[in-house]
C-alpha cells in the first residue's frame, strides 16, 4: 500500500468521481453529498500521508505499469509537489463542504466535476513527464469548462466561450512546444530533458529555446501573466463563487509548471540556455502586479476585486520564479499556499455577502444591510488583512519574506516600490469595499431581512480556510523550514535527475 501512495492522490478523485456518477449517488442528493465529502476527506488524508512520507524518505518515484523512466511514465512526488497536492486536496474538501450547503443543486454533476478537477490538478503536480502535464492540464480544463457553466446564465456562457477558446489555442501552442522539444531532445521526461538540454549543440540550441519560450507563452496564459491575463477577471467573477474558489488553485498550476520547466529544465546546468526565461518573467510579473492592483481599485464588486487579487498574487509568484534561487522559491511556496487559501475564502465570503444583501448583491453600493453583520464583518476583516499582508496574519509573514529575498536582487529598485505601493492600493480598495458592504446600509426598519442565515457548512468552510492563514503564522517556523527544504530539493537538479532516472518503485 505504502509504495502506491504516490498514485493515490490521482486515483482517489477519479474513483470518487466515478462513484458519484453511479447509482445510488447519481440520484440521491444526500448520498451524493455524503460520498463526495467522505471521498474528498480521504483524498486529503492520503495527500497529507504522502507529504509526511516524502518529507521523511525523500523523493518518491512511482513508475506506472512498472515501466521505468525515461521510457515509461512516472509520477514523481517530491516535497514541492506533495505540498501542492495537499493544498489542492484541502481546498477540495472546503469547496465540497461549501457546495453541500446548497450550491450543488444549481446544476447537475457539481460533485463529480469537482473531483475530476482535483484529479487533473493533482496529476499535473505529480507527473514527471511533460506530455502528461499536458494531458492533466486538459483533464482539469475540461472539468473547469463544465464547472464554469455551473448555475447557467448569459454572463457565464459568454465568459465560458472566451475561456474555452483561449485555452484551446493555448493547448495547441503547448503541443507545438512539446513537439519541438521532443524533436530536439528525443525525450519528454522532465528529469531526462534537464539532463539532455546541457548537451545540445549548434542549431538545436535555438530550436530548444523556441520550444521553451513557446511553453512560456502557454504557462503565462494558464497562470494569467500580463499580456495574457485578460480572460481571468471576467471568468472568475462570473463563475459561481464556490467554483471560483476552487479555480484559485488553477492559476497556480501554471506557476508550478513554470517552476518545473524554467528552474529544473532550463535551470543552472542548462549550458547556453541557462535561466533563459528570467528577464521576460521578471518584467511581466511586475507589470502584472501593477495591472492587478489597478483592477482591484477599479472593480465595482467584491468578486471582481477578488479576481484581481488573484492576478496580483500571480504576479508576485512569477516574480519569485524569475529570481531562481532557493530563498525566493521557499518564499514563493509559502506565499502560494497563503494566497490560494485566502483568495478562495474571499470568493466564498463574497457569495454569502451577496446572498444576504439581496438585489444589490456584492456590488459596492449602498443597499440592504447584511443579516449577520458581526459574523461576516469579522470574517471579512480577517480575510482582508490577510490578503493585504497586514500583521498578524500570514500575508504579513509572506510579504516580509518576499521583500527580504528580493532585497539583494538587482531589480529591487523596481520591485520594492511597485510591491509596496500595490499594498497601499489594496488597503485603500479593500477598506472602501468593506465600508460600502457593511456600513453604507439602508436601514429600512419596516421590512425584515428575509435572507437566509449563512449555512453552518458555509461558515465552517470559510473559517477553515482562514484558520489556515493563522496556522501559517503560528507554525510559521516549521512551515518555512519545510518550504526551504522543498526549495533546496527543487534546486538540487542533479539529485532530482538521479532520483527519477535511477529510482522507480
Amino acid at each position, binding site marked *: 500500500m505504502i509504495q502506491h501512495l504516490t498514485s493515490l492522490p490521482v486515483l482517489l478523485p477519479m474513483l470518487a468521481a466515478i462513484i458519484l456518477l453511479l447509482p445510488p449517488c447519481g440520484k440521491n442528493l444526500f448520498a451524493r453529498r455524503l460520498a463526495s465529502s467522505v471521498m474528498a476527506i480521504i483524498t486529503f488524508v492520503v495527500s497529507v500521508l504522502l507529504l509526511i512520507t516524502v518529507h521523511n524518505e525523500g523523493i518518491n518515484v512511482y513508475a506506472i505499469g512498472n515501466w521505468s523512466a525515461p521510457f515509461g511514465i512516472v509520477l514523481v512526488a517530491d516535497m514541492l509537489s506533495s505540498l501542492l497536492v495537499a493544498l489542492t486536496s484541502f481546498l477540495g474538501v472546503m469547496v465540497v463542504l461549501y457546495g453541500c450547503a446548497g450550491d450543488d443543486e444549481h446544476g447537475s454533476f457539481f460533485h463529480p466535476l469537482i473531483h475530476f478537477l482535483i484529479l487533473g490538478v493533482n496529476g499535473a503536480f505529480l507527473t514527471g513527464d511533460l506530455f502528461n502535464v499536458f494531458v492533466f492540464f486538459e483533464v482539469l480544463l475540461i472539468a473547469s469548462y463544465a464547472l464554469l457553466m455551473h448555475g447557467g446564465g448569459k454572463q457565464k*456562457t459568454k465568459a465560458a466561450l*472566451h475561456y474555452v477558446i483561449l485555452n484551446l489555442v493555448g493547448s495547441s501552442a503547448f*503541443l507545438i512546444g512539446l513537439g519541438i522539444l521532443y524533436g530536439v531532445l528525443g525525450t519528454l521526461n522532465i528529469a531526462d530533458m534537464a539532463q539532455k538540454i546541457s548537451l545540445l549543440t549548434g542549431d538545436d540550441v535555438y530550436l530548444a529555446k523556441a520550444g521553451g519560450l513557446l511553453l512560456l507563452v502557454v504557462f503565462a496564459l494558464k497562470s494569467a501573466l500580463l499580456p495574457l491575463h485578460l480572460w481571468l477577471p471576467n471568468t472568475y467573477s462570473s463563475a459561481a463563487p464556490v467554483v471560483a474558489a476552487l479555480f484559485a488553485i488553477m492559476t497556480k498550476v501554471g506557476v508550478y509548471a513554470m517552476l518545473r520547466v524554467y528552474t529544473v529544465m532550463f535551470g543552472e546546468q542548462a549550458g547556453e540556455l541557462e535561466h533563459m526565461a528570467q528577464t521576460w518573467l521578471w518584467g511581466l510579473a511586475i507589470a502584472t502586479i501593477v495591472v492587478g492592483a489597478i483592477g482591484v481599485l477599479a472593480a465595482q464588486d467584491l468578486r471582481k476585486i477578488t479576481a484581481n487579487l488573484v492576478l496580483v498574487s500571480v504576479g508576485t509568484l512569477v516574480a519569485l520564479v524569475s529570481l531562481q534561487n532557493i530563498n525566493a522559491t521557499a518564499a514563493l511556496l509559502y506565499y502560494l499556499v497563503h494566497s490560494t487559501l485566502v483568495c478562495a475564502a474571499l470568493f466564498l465570503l463574497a457569495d454569502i455577502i451577496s446572498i444576504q444583501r439581496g438585489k444589490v448583491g456584492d456590488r459596492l453600493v449602498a443597499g440592504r444591510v447584511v443579516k449577520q453583520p458581526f459574523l461576516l464583518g469579522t470574517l471579512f476583516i480577517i480575510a482582508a488583512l490577510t490578503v493585504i499582508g497586514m500583521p498578524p496574519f500570514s500575508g504579513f509573514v509572506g510579504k516580509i519574506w518576499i521583500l527580504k529575498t528580493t532585497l539583494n536582487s538587482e531589480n529591487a529598485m523596481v520591485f520594492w516600490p511597485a510591491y509596496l505601493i500595490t499594498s497601499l492600493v489594496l488597503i485603500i480598495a479593500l477598506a472602501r469595499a468593506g465600508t460600502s458592504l457593511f456600513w453604507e446600509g439602508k436601514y429600512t426598519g419596516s421590512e425584515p431581512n428575509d435572507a437566509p442565515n449563512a449555512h453552518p457548512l458555509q461558515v465552517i468552510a470559510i473559517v477553515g480556510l482562514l484558520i489556515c492563514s493563522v496556522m501559517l503564522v503560528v507554525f510559521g517556523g516549521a512551515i518555512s523550514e519545510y518550504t526551504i527544504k522543498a526549495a533546496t530539493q527543487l534546486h538540487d537538479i542533479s539529485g532530482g535527475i538521479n532520483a527519477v532516472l535511477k529510482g522507480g518503485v
Partner: protein
Amino acid sequence: MELLYASCVGVLISCGVFLLLRARTFPVVLGLTMISYAVNLFLFSSGRLTTNKAVVLGTGADYADPLPQALVLTAIVIGFAMTAFVVILAIRGRADLGNDHVDGHLVKSKYKVRK
C-alpha cells in the same frame, strides 16, 4: 517531402488563425479544428520524416520512432473531446446570447442599414 509537409502545416495554421480572428463561433470552431490538425501533423513530424521504415517489431535496427505516434494519438483524442465541447458551447451561446459573436453582441456598424 519536407517542404510539402512544412507548407501544409503552415497553411493550416494560418487559415486557422484567420478563422479564429473572425470572432464568430462557427468560424472559430473551424479554425480551432484546423489548428489542431496542423498541430497533430507537426507532432507527428517531430519523430523525423522517414519512408519505408518498419514499425518497432524487434527485427530491424532501422525503425520509425513510435513515441510521436503515441503522442499524436493522445492529442487527437483530446482534440476531439475539446472540439465536441466547444461546438456544444457555441450552440448554447447562440441560444443564450441571441447571436453567434464570441462577445455575445454584434459590433455596431458605422453605416445605417436601410430597412
